[in-house]
């Protein structure tokens, strides 16, 4: 008994010291609530992810970036949005993907300029154990964890259906497509052509493939319309094609006789919708692509299940008659300008 008497005080001091220490620790935990607590957040360092877009200039890609940014903030990720100088440069995209691998990104989100030429870099990332998520434009790789994009074939069909609805007569179609290696452009073209061919009201379809620049689209449209003045319907398959062909039609004074069905929107193409050069816009949901891409990356990094390995984002048809509806306004005019 005497012996216990001797050991106990030491032990009590130990316990008291421990209690004091743990109280301080818990006060520290409770005290600093303003900043997210690293103890509770788990990882002090945010996971680093890279989004490789096709451009950082167009309204479409700015919207993608803004959606990606919103999700990165919500899921506490360190997101880096990169894009080549122009929408043709798949080599620069490959360099960016490889840089992301070197930088030990936890996930890479890619929109491939070239369906085949971007595949190798994507496969390298997959081989390095980095999950790859494709948004907007697909790439020829088996390793892609999730694809988030517009169903471009259906989007093409939507444009074709509107063209048939607005013109009761015979259609002569000119298709202003961009990079022939872009899967999206090809799918849209196929959708558009399928619909008009099914109707049996189509006289001819002329397709031109431009560089993915406004100038190229302008030049190609002008020469196509000079060569085939009978064309009364144009399909411009992306934002830059819309602008180029819209300006061409405006400058040639053909706004009344040629209807353009265009993809994506920006302030200029919306203006052309009002002034009549463009008949209708098929508007995708770029914000959702960016947001869902980053959200999926978060789920993959943390081993959470993803709803599907293929997510279709919505498309909306906008014409002069509905462009100022409240919902459409909110969709095509960005708030943060």
């Amino acid at each position: 008994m005497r012996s216990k008497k001797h050991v106990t005080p030491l032990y009590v001091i130990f316990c008291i010291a421990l209690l004091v220490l743990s109280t301080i620790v818990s006060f520290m935990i409770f005290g600093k609530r303003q900043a997210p607590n690293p103890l509770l957040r788990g990882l002090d360092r945010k996971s680093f992810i890279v989004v490789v877009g096709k451009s950082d200039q167009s309204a479409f890609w700015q919207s993608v970036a803004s959606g990606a940014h919103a999700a990165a903030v919500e899921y506490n990720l360190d997101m880096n949005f990169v894009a080549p100088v122009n929408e043709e440069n798949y080599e620069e995209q490959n360099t960016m993907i490889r840089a992301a691998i070197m930088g030990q990104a936890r996930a890479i989100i890619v929109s491939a300029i070239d369906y085949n030429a971007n595949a190798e870099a994507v496969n390298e990332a997959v081989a390095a154990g980095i999950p790859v998520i494709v948004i907007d434009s697909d790439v020829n790789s088996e390793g892609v964890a999730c694809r988030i994009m517009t169903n471009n074939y259906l989007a093409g069909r939507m444009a074709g259906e509107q063209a048939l609805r607005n013109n009761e007569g015979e259609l002569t179609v000119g298709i202003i497509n961009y990079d022939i290696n872009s899967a999206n452009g090809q799918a849209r073209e196929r959708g558009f052509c399928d619909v008009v061919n099914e109707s049996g009201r189509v006289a001819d379809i002329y397709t031109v493939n431009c560089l993915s620049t406004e100038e190229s689209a302008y030049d190609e449209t002008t020469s196509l319309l000079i060569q085939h003045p009978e064309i009364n319907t144009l399909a411009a398959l992306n934002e830059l094609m819309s602008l180029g062909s819209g300006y061409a039609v405006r400058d040639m004074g053909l706004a009344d006789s040629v209807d353009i069905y265009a993809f994506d929107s920006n302030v200029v193409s919306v203006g052309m919708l009002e002034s009549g050069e463009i008949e209708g816009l098929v508007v995708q949901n770029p914000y959702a692509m960016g947001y869902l891409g980053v959200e999926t990356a978060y789920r993959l990094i943390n081993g959470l299940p993803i709803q599907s390995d293929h997510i279709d984002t919505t498309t909306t048809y906008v014409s002069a008659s509905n462009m100022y509806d409240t919902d459409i306004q909110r969709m095509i005019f960005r708030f943060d300008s």
Partner: protein
Amino acid sequence: MSDHQNKVGFSLSKTMTIVVVIMVFTAVIIALVVFNAVFRDSLEQAAMTSAGQSVDQVAVTINNYTDDMIEIMDELYTNSIEDPSTLEDLFNNVIDIRNDVVMIATYDAHNNNTGIWSNYPTKDMIYTNLSLYPVSAEFNNGISISAPHVVTVLDNYYPWVVTITKSAEETFSNAAKIAMDVRFSAIARYIDEVGIGQHGYCFIMDSAGNIIYHPQQQLIYAGLKYENTDGLLALTDGSHMIDGVIYTVKTLENSNWKIIGVTYLDDTVNDRVRAMALASGLIFFIVVVMTFLSGSLFSYMFTKPATKLAHAMKDFEDNASGFVFEPIEGSVEVNNLSDSFEHLVIRIQQLMEEVKEEETTLRKTELKALQAQINPHFLYNTLDSISWMCEEGKTDDAILMVNALAKLFRISISRGKEIIPIEKEVQHAECYLQIQKFRYTNQFDYKFKVEESCKDYLCNKITLQPLIENALYHGLNMIDEGYIEIRIFEDGEDVIMEVEDNGSGMTEEQVAELFVNDGTDQHGIGVKNVNDRIKIYFGDKYGISVRSELDEGTCVTIRIPKITEERKYEK
């Protein structure tokens, strides 16, 4: 006590560990339950209060902003009435100064546009003008405020605005209406930055349930998020808790807008409870670890050494004489125990050694005493004397001799007893002296002075005889008138027996020799044997002392305790 515990099967350190762990565990559970019960409620209240304050703040800010705009509009109107000629300058000034005023337009009574003032170019052709018609809320001073919309009259520029319109009762200039488009982004940016709790936010909705502005409206339009505006319309102003989400509603004073604050209770309360649980778990873990550590320390310091000590004690019990104790290291208490035990072991081993030695000595002395009983030399001489007496015809002397001899042997055997009454011992000595007196033909004289009271006390047998023998051989041999006096008397609690002679005396060396020589010479057992037996039987304080002076004589004193027949075994 601890022995008993050992039998139950729990060591002290294990018991301590278990008790502490149970105590801490209980404390942690109670703390968590109390925290959950008591603090959750107050935290909920605090979260609701804080959400209410945030939303009030938003409402005040937006009200101030709209008030500000309405004030500008009133200013424009008043000035235009007073001095219509300055109207255009006034409009241009407002547009230049107020960056958030995108455009000012005037309309006539038929809603025809009569002028647009803006820093941005207008479209060549205006197809639609959203700034003209929409009215969301009207005030009694003729001012109305629209829902947010884009400006549709500017070239390639579609900013989001709210339109503040003043309908004039009396016409000023040529206008019946002034419409001012104010950027909505100022309000939007403010709303974006309002945070309530960790993931809380607020948004604006009108009285019809349409979302005016939502920080995540892109998500809502993209179909990725849903806000139950119909359900929220039913709520009155104030904080409401629905399924763990706190909705705070505040209707603005000067419009039909409602500010809705959304806070997730999970953010605030659950995080705290989780943090509490985490901290408690941490405390519990640390305490358990420390308890085990201190338990093993305790065990190392006390329990193990104690067990070792117990084993050592058992070993000692099994083999007391051959046991070698190795000191056990541990706490101070254990060290003390170990030291004490070591002393104990050494003392017991010493005592055992002593007992063994004494036993051996006793055996030897007793054997010698036994041998003395039938000293063949003495017997031979005595019998020789008797035989000679018979030859001489001294029949009476012979009879005396034979009787003395017989008595001598009877007493010295004493049925094997070591302790006999002093009376018998005196008789024994008398017989011996009688025999010797005959043999030495009255060369010496002797006298017994025995106190009657001493006769019943006990003493070792054959104690006086060796001393008398010593006196005869060493003291009286050379002297003609030898005299031996035997005195027995009481001295307090003791009995003293003295044998005094008037012989040649002894040197100190000779005296010392008496106690060393174990009497193996021909003269039977020696003084040492008697001394040893007395000490073994009665203790060290008893025994023989010798006082001797050369040419004067020797006095040998025996001191023994008073022991009666009844008390013989008490010692």
